[in-house]
């Protein structure tokens, strides 16, 4: 398979995935998009193995590795900070003696807010990865030009 064909295949898979996301939201069945996403990644991986004119040498592997490591290093701190806040919700116990029934029900993180936070984290992860990838690609001379 040629490199451009592979990019076309990836584009088609992304479009199908977008359609499934739409359908999944319409019928409110999150497992549809979750399973489809995993299948899409597997399909992209399998298609990538069939590409014969895509040279992936040690420098490009290093750029990918460094970008992933740095993304993880930054992301886990933010994710852990959010998670610690969420864990507080389950660790919180009422103080004794109880002064009767509480005036307000305990605040639990609503599922919708959780969705927004997860969306924010997902976008953050993508931005971090793209940013670090551009940084390391520049560092290792990806866009350098020469007289040749």
């Amino acid at each position, binding site marked *: 398979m040629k490199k451009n064909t592979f990019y076309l295949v990836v584009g088609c898979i992304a479009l199908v995935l977008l359609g499934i996301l739409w359908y999944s939201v319409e019928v409110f069945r999150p497992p549809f998009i979750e399973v489809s996403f995993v299948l899409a990644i597997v399909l992209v991986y399998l298609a990538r193995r069939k590409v014969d004119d895509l040279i992936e*040498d040690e*420098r490009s592997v290093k750029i990918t590795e460094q970008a992933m490591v740095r993304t993880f290093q930054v992301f886990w701190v933010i994710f852990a900070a959010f998670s610690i806040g969420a864990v507080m919700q389950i660790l919180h116990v009422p103080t004794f003696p109880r002064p009767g029934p509480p005036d307000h029900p305990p605040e639990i993180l609503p599922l919708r807010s959780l969705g927004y936070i997860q969306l924010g984290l997902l976008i953050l992860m993508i931005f971090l990865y793209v940013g670090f990838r551009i940084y390391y690609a520049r560092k290792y001379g990806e866009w*350098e030009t*020469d007289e040749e």
Partner: protein
Amino acid sequence: MKNKIKVYRAMNDLTQEDLAKAIGVTRQTILAIEKGRYVPSLDLAFRIARHFKVNVEEIFLYGDTPSP
């Protein structure tokens, strides 16, 4: 780490693309190594040296090693 890949390429009348194809890397990698932006692994350094049929120390100069 300095290197003399450009010199050896000129001596062997090779373009960056030719060398890259011969050792199985991209032209950008050869360019990055020549410009000192990327230090190759031992494996790649030996592959380059073997392609020019010289010792690796003749192409790659570590730190302040004086050139022979």
